[in-house]
């Protein structure tokens, strides 16, 4: 196959890939606000997924919160300084998770700083509460299973009525969702084995298919069980062969279930002494990401501040354990608590989220051990360790940098950025088209390809578009056009020396290449330096500039040449 054909095939493949990468962004950007609301109402998870797959907008464009925290090391003694930052991060992550922020960023910076970015979230007061407060670690008991199912069944009928009233009839989506859940339920059949080991037993497990809650026994149609059909029984004590109210819910269903549980008419069904709590993190069960929903008794049985010497370890079977000791005051109390509740789960609750609900295997006096479930990784165990430590030894933080950008300012910026990009682009397209005639139009086509590919790459990389990022795109336009100007000026020179049109085009492209290449590389060097050392918005600028310039080498040079090469013989050239 000729070189020309290969190039056309390559370009076609790139176009298909770019369309694929850009699809979600296109869908999101063309969606009206009312459509978005409607989708959010129907299925909150879907909108979030769409936002995650589309080009992300920076704080400056969609509004949001950016906070830099400093862990006050000077208030901690030497021993507890060690992983103070990790502890604080873990706590913040627990709290931020579930806010409905599409792409929260929580990361360590330097030795004692933490960056928290909540794009799209503009409730500053709530966010500061979430970030600045000291972690509260509590131990609570779970409600018994029979009561939990009774409550959930009642809630089901209320929610069913509510949905019926809201949508008129049972809508299609609900049916589909239910079918999916059922399928998933079947695949859970072979459960995980649990290690029953030392003092406390670790993460619970789904055991056998007949454990699924709520089936036949309630005798209701799936559509009439909006919540329970989305839950799977997942907390089962092998030793005692008893069920406990810990249910697995698919990650995507969490927001929906939350919404239902928070309805006033549902809240009134939940007895005053219990509450529904989610697990702190999603976990993987049978290849699905699920959150656990527990029905926890509100009464605080024990406080995390009495824990000491929390350390990660391994038991004789190689499984991960978290060891802890109890301080003087706490020991007697904990012994009493564990002695009185043998074989029951004890929920470890941090900031009203359940880290885990291990079963109590024996009375614990001075030293205890939490055995992680058989499938737990070292990361899970480490998370548990950090959460316990954070509850026992909170890391005090202060805010040293804060940016809260209101959604209106963001929208204002994006309008201006978008508008000025469009105007700038049109002016350039017009200028090049008028100045270089038909050849200029070819350059314009290359330029449009450049911008399209750039947006697609940004979507594929999950890059964040910021205002400086838009500036980066605009500068890319300049660089891309420069390549074509170089080539066209060269072609004109070659034409003046009396060469044929074909020879002039080829010579123009060949001779201009060196200058184009060098100028692209030098811009890439700048972009690279900015990327390495820049932060936040500057990084966004560097990323768009880097990709814009890289892509421009292909679109302004190869694609435009391809277009010229479509015709073999030229008698005249419009340039």
């Amino acid at each position, binding site marked *: 196959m000729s070189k020309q054909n290969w190039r056309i095939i390559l370009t076609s493949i790139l176009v298909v890939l770019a369309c694929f990468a850009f699809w979600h962004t296109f869908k999101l950007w063309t969606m009206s606000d009312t459509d978005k609301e409607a989708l959010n109402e129907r299925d909150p998870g879907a909108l979030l997924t769409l936002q995650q797959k589309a080009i992300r907008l920076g704080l400056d464009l969609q509004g949001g919160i950016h906070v830099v925290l400093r862990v006050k090391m000077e208030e901690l003694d030497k021993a507890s300084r060690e992983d103070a930052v990790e502890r604080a991060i873990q706590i913040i992550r627990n709290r931020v998770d579930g806010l409905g922020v599409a792409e929260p960023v929580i990361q360590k910076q330097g030795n004692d700083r933490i960056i928290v970015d909540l794009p799209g979230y503009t409730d500053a007061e709530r966010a500061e509460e979430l970030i600045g407060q000291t972690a509260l670690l509590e131990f609570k008991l779970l409600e018994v299973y029979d009561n939990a199912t009774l409550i959930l069944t009642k809630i089901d009928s209320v929610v069913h009525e509510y949905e019926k009233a809201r949508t008129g009839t049972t809508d299609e989506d609900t049916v589909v969702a239910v079918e999916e859940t059922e399928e998933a339920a079947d695949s859970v059949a072979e459960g995980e084995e649990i290690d029953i080991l030392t003092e406390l037993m670790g993460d619970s497990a789904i055991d056998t298919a007949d454990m699924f809650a709520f089936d036949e026994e309630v005798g209701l149609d799936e559509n009439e069980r909006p919540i329970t059909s989305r839950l799977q029984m997942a907390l089962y004590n092998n030793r005692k062969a008893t069920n406990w109210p810990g249910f697995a819910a698919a990650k995507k269903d969490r927001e929906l279930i939350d919404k239902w549980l928070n309805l006033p008419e549902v809240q009134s069904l939940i007895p005053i002494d219990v509450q529904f709590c989610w697990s702190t993190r999603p976990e993987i069960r049978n290849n699905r990401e699920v959150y656990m929903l527990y029905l926890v008794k509100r009464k605080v049985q024990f406080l995390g501040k009495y824990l000491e010497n929390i350390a990660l370890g391994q038991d004789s079977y190689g499984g991960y354990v978290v060891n802890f000791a109890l301080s003087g005051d706490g020991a007697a109390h904990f012994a009493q608590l564990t002695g009185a509740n043998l074989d029951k789960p004890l929920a470890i609750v941090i900031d009203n989220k359940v880290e885990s609900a291990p079963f109590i295997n024996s009375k614990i006096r001075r030293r205890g051990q939490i055995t992680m479930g058989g499938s737990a990784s070292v990361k899970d165990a480490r998370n548990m360790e950090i959460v316990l430590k954070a509850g026992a030894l909170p890391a005090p933080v202060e805010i040293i940098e804060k940016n809260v950008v209101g959604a209106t300012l963001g929208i204002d910026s994006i309008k201006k950025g978008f508008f000025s990009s469009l105007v700038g682009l049109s002016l350039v397209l017009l200028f090049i088209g008028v100045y270089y005639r038909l050849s200029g139009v070819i350059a314009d086509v290359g330029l449009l390809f450049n911008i399209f590919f750039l947006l697609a790459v940004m979507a594929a990389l999950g890059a964040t578009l910021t205002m400086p990022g838009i500036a980066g795109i605009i500068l890319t336009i300049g660089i891309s056009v420069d390549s074509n100007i170089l080539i066209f000026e060269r072609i004109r020179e070659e034409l003046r020396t009396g060469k044929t049109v074909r020879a002039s085009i080829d010579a123009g492209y060949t001779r201009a290449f060196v200058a184009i290449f060098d100028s692209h590389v*030098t811009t890439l060097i700048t972009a690279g330096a900015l990327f390495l050392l820049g932060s936040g918005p500057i990084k966004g600028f560097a990323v768009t500039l880097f990709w814009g310039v890289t892509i421009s080498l292909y679109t302004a040079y190869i694609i435009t040449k391809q277009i010229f090469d479509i015709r073999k013989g030229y008698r005249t050239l419009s340039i």
Partner: protein
Amino acid sequence: MFRIIGQTNINFIGARKYAFVLSGALVIIGIIGFIMIVTGKANLGIDFAGGVMVTGHFDRTVTIEDLRSAVAAEFPNAEITNLKDFEKPNAFIIKTKRPETEAEGEQRLATLIKIIESSFAGNTFTLVSEHIIGPAVGETLRGDAQKAILLSLFGIVVYIWIRFDFRSGIAATIATFHDVLAVLGIFYLLGLEFDLLIITALLTLAGYSLTDTVVVFDRIRENLKKFRTKGEFANAVNSSINEVLSRTFNTSLTVLLVVGTLFFFGGEVLRYFSLALIFGVLVGTYSSIFVASPIVVEWEARRPKRFK
């Protein structure tokens, strides 16, 4: 064929003495500005200096003077800008720089907001955005920005050295430094604020100016293969500049079209960023003609390079 600049034969190299004087002056102002930035005496944005900033709008008309006198007691150095192109009228940005300690930032912000909200009875202030930047954060950012500039300039010298020769690398770097310093100097003279975005703009214009220089050098390299006799070096350089003049002009014009649009329609955030780029394009175009190539000519005159 539509042409703005045709074939020219301007003696650019002959005018290099005047150019060196002008450039020297620009560079000196730039160096002064740079020293002021490093020592923190120049007009630094809150992202470098640290400080608090509030953006918001009032229901009813308020003038900058009203607002200034309202906050003057607590914040005598507050800078207030009227956001004219914001979608709501009576929108302002109020900035105060440099709280003494990091913890103070939070408090200062709260005080500032409280004063603004309570000073105009019956006129509600709606907060649109709030920013706090601790001075330590500003220092880190400033350090990073300086490192980024040095790193990219170093990378560029090495690249040009590899692609051309050592003296071209040096000449290109001088021209690039010249452009960055010139724009920095102009900004300093005009008393405009230096923030992270301006640094980004400076680095971008470094890239642009370099592109211009590289294009001219590339043409010189090509032409030197034709004119190998000694003594014609200056001529070869001069005709190279003339040959690519049309490209230089068109490219600069395109970039100006784009950054000009940004300047007029890009909003407050990008205004000074685009202004820096406008200066940058102008200075960069000038330097690729009057700075980089003449340096190579001077160098050649003193220590002629042997042609293989």
